């Protein structure tokens, strides 16, 4: 437990910074994908089509019904194996296009970073989808009716009238999901995704400085989450300010 020695070790900082950069990068990328994935699947869920609603239900069922770590293993190990097997079986095909596809599939591999981002996107997307749905269902039915009776199509009314109001309600829950995803990147380290926890484990394996290293790692997360919280408070305040300013102008 030699804090001073650990703190002055340049290798540690290098490792942790590069790991943390990975954490942040994958989080941002995954959240961006998850946001749109969540929005689209949420619209599937509230659509009139039975097929789209079923897709939404199935997606949520799979993601919510399995742990993140299994999803990560599935994307990183299971899916490539499945694709390789399919690829090998297509190798002997007489159709040239299939044979060529088989050749590339037979050696299919996925990078840990890619697999991590895909896993986190799919995972956060499902939860965001539910967050958006709760936001949409919190909007009074009269809003849709008013927009429709003015002549807007259903999609247009959704996009211009319902979603802006729904997203506003969702901001705290969305930020919450962002924080969860940021921390969930640590779970994805199990597939060799070299984020901060992965780097810390390697460092400790070498030096045995558990206490100091994990304390520093925890501080990294705390810092990131604190920044995220401050930003989200700012967003909320700004959204409320628009209305407050209008109110003041009148008085």
């Amino acid at each position: 437990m030699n804090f001073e020695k650990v703190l002055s070790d340049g290798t540690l900082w290098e490792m942790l910074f590069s790991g943390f950069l990975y954490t942040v990068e994958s989080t941002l990328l995954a959240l961006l994908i998850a946001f749109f994935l969540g929005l689209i699947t949420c619209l599937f869920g509230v659509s009139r089509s039975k097929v789209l609603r079923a897709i939404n239900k199935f997606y949520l069922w799979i993601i919510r019904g399995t742990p993140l770590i299994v999803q990560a293993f599935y994307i990183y190990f299971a899916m490539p194996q499945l694709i390789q097997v399919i690829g090998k079986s297509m190798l002997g095909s007489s159709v040239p296009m299939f044979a060529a596809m088989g050749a590339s599939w037979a050696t299919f591999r996925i990078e840990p970073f890619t697999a991590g981002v895909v896993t986190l996107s799919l995972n956060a997307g499902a939860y965001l989808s539910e967050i958006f749905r709760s936001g949409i269902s919190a909007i009074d039915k009269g809003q849709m009716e008013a927009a429709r009776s003015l002549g807007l199509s259903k999609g247009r009314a959704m996009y211009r009238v319902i979603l802006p109001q729904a997203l506003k309600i969702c901001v705290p829950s969305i930020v919450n999901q962002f924080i969860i995803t940021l921390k969930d990147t640590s779970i994805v380290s199990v597939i060799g995704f070299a984020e901060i926890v992965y780097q810390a484990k390697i460092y400790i394996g070498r030096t045995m400085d558990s206490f100091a290293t994990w304390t520093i790692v925890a501080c990294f997360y705390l810092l990131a989450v604190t920044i995220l919280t401050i930003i989200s408070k700012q967003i909320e305040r700004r959204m409320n300010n628009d209305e407050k300013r209008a109110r003041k102008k009148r008085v």
Partner: protein
Amino acid sequence: MKKELEKREYKHKVNVVGLHKYFDDLQVLKGVDLQVEEGEVVCVIGPSGSGKSTFLRCLNLLEVPTKGTVEIDGYVVNDKKANINKIRENIGMVFQQFNLFPNMTVKKNIMFAPVDLKKMTKAQAEEKAMSLLKRVGLEDKADAYPKQLSGGQQQRVAIARALAMNPDIMMFDEPTSALDPEMVGEVLSVMKELAAQGMTMVVVTHETGFARDVADRVIFMADGYIVEQGTPEEIFTNPKEERTKEFLKCVL
């Protein structure tokens, strides 16, 4: 610019034939026929649960009729091929709960649909919004948000919002039922003025005074049927049907 609806020849501005509406097993409308002529003001009265609101909502397809046809300006509204969005542009609707967009200012509420549907430029819509606000007596509230207004003011904004699309029919679904009594008058006077300018209007209301003063024709509905219709004079002072007399005894 999207294609406009072509003008069609028609006999009645609104022509409803054999309208039935079920909600699952519950039959709410049991065969309603009604014609409304251009410039006519029709008030629909009747006890709660008689199907008045459902009937009105069938006219612009907020409820889909189970059976029968609804024709507006010669277009069958509940035809699958009908361009319902275009047809709705010509039908203004005012709701009991106002349904203003809470995230937009009063002015934006009014400008929203004409701009979004590319009927007007922003400048045109703004000018239109201000003139409509003047008409309903709320030009000083242009930059306020709906929740800063009283119920009566909100409803007047809702009327202005509907008028912004230049509809030639206006429908009102119990426009004063959610208002405090002292605010009913301001909304009714806006509606009266609208009627005086020749707007075709279908009004579901509990305000028998308004119906008596403004309506060209009063429809009495009960249990999913039109029980009786006639001039306000005929309905209010000389009702023929027993059901009508019973109802009027309670409300007058």
